């Protein structure tokens, strides 16, 4: 066998070795760049949304709608945009940052006492601090006579105040936001 052939085979073997590695890395691409949702998962995200929206009749999930706001993760929920009633409350700062709760139809009480729907244990929160209630077609936040006050978009509120999706509510060191 000639020298040249051997060199070509040698280089070929190294190339094969690297080809193997690149094929492995290519098949791992979703691990490196985040998963691409399959059709099944998109349907899953859709049905999860319609479930959390409380509609009993499953509206047929339009694939176009799923593609338009391609969520990167399944847990990511609708972004605040446009009108509609908020369904969830999200803690955006404070000790419980990241906490998400579904807003019950009956409203949510916030305070330090263990009977509160959302319990915040810090020195600035009163036992029964505030209440989020539904009035007509919007959510209202009502201060329950707290010591340190409830703030909506930075202003202290003393009477029931409407809260829009995305506007911030601050109680003590904790900030919330309503999300759809």
């Amino acid at each position, binding site marked *: *066998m000639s020298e040249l052939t*051997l*060199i070509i*085979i*040698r*280089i070929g*073997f*190294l190339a*094969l*070795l*690297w*080809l*193997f*590695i690149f*094929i*492995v*890395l290519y*098949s*791992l*691409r*979703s*691990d490196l760049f985040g*998963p691409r949702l399959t059709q*099944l998962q998109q349907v*899953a995200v859709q049905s*999860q949304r319609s*479930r959390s929206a409380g509609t009993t009749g499953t509206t047929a999930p339009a694939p176009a709608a799923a593609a338009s706001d391609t969520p990167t993760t399944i847990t990511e929920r609708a972004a605040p945009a446009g009108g509609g009633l908020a369904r969830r409350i999200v803690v955006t700062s404070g000790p*419980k940052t990241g*906490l*998400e*709760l*579904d807003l*019950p139809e009956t409203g949510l009480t916030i305070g330090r006492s*263990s009977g*509160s*729907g*959302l*319990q915040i244990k810090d020195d600035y929160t009163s036992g029964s601090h505030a209440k989020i209630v539904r009035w007509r077609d919007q959510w209202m936040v009502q201060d329950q006579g707290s010591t340190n006050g409830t703030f909506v978009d930075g202003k202290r509120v003393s009477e029931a105040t409407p809260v829009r999706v995305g506007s911030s509510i601050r109680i003590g060191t904790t900030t919330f936001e309503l999300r759809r």
Partner: protein
Amino acid sequence: MTQAAPRDRAATGSNALQTGLIQLREVTEAIRVRVRNPAKLRNLELFLLVIAWVVGGGAMVLVQLGALETVDLFPLQLAAILAVLTFALHIALRVVAREADAIILPVATALNGIGIAMIYRIDIAQGATGWDAASMRQIAWTGIALVIAIAAIVLVRNHRVLARYRFLAMAAAFVLLLLPLMPGIGRTVNGATVWVGVGPVTFQPGELAKIALAIFFAGYLMTARDSLSVVGKRFLGIRFPRVRDLGPILVVWAMCMLVLVFQRDLGTSLLYFGLFLVMIYVATGRRSWMVIGVGLVALGGVAAYFTMGYVQRRIHAWIHAFDNDVYNASGGSFQIVEGIFGMAHGGLLGTGLGLGRPYLTPYANSDYIIPSLGEELGLAGLMAILCLYIVLVSRGIRVGFQGPDDFTKLLSVGLAFVIGLQVFIVVGGVTRLIPLTGLTTPFLAAGGSSLLANWLIVALLLRLSDSVRGRGFA
């Protein structure tokens, strides 16, 4: 999968109904993802496996072309045992672990195949044939290791059962560690008492002990992580654990020091301690454990340097490797320097398989298989091999990242890390980054016990990755 995830959400003290709904949703999600088509993963695995066979077989053929200038089919047929049994393992996965990781098996197969080819190449140079040839024994051990790995994956259907046997695992690890010290069956090879031998068959029980230790550490840390993450005083900007929680790490450290003193094996004791350190760090997320651990290693290292001659010689051979006196001394740096010369001779693309002279280095087929490969495959080939290890280790850590429970997470990180650390200690040793210690290169080096232990690790990692249902790639 429902036990860990909703904890933070449920801990809010909100109404129980909500928690129930969240749990219900997780359960339904778990059902939904089962519908996925796992055959896709297994087909990818088969495809990669075929390439791995071609890599292994190609290396064999190249060795023959380079060293013998003909193609001899008989060794190739023997090496096909690797292909047959990895295919059997693949079939077993299709039946009992359909969603196991698709990358681990092909990568391990490729490494094993390259290893056999290199050992065969050294055999040709030394004129060894039959059972004297290390490659024959390596192929036989590959067969045994793969049969045991297949048995493990078929028998261990639920790895969480292993958590129950954590103290049995601990006892097994101690027995395995003590076996080489028993008179009659213990063997001392090159100063290290890490072998047991019955007749012609020798075995390094410490290799299996690392798996037992990983199982024990995972089971123990699963229950002890809360108390171990409690912090005490703040010192130098890091919060250190309470003094009374230092017990376990000191026990493991003492065990590793005993290995160092009585078995005279630096690498193994580093490996065990590193394994515990990483697992305790993963379990608690406290950096102070790393500080304490590195401090203990430094303390032990300094003490060993001043009290034990062989440690001192190793350090000298490492620092003054190119000193003529050290080079010529018995137990000096001859091997290190020959290995480095070999790799330098290989250059970027290598001399070609079968065309270099790696056999000039002592133990060119076991401890020094990395410089042998570096000489004949060059930097390009060695980097490819290191990439294979990176992929293998990262797959294990990936399981640790996504694992459904603490035991799975800890065990997979521990098992993956032990391979990674072993590669680091070996490659670091032969390239003179750290002092040289005699550890085997996983899957590549000649040695049955190492091969058996590493294929068992692969079987366990495959089993663990199967429990990450529906959260894998592709």
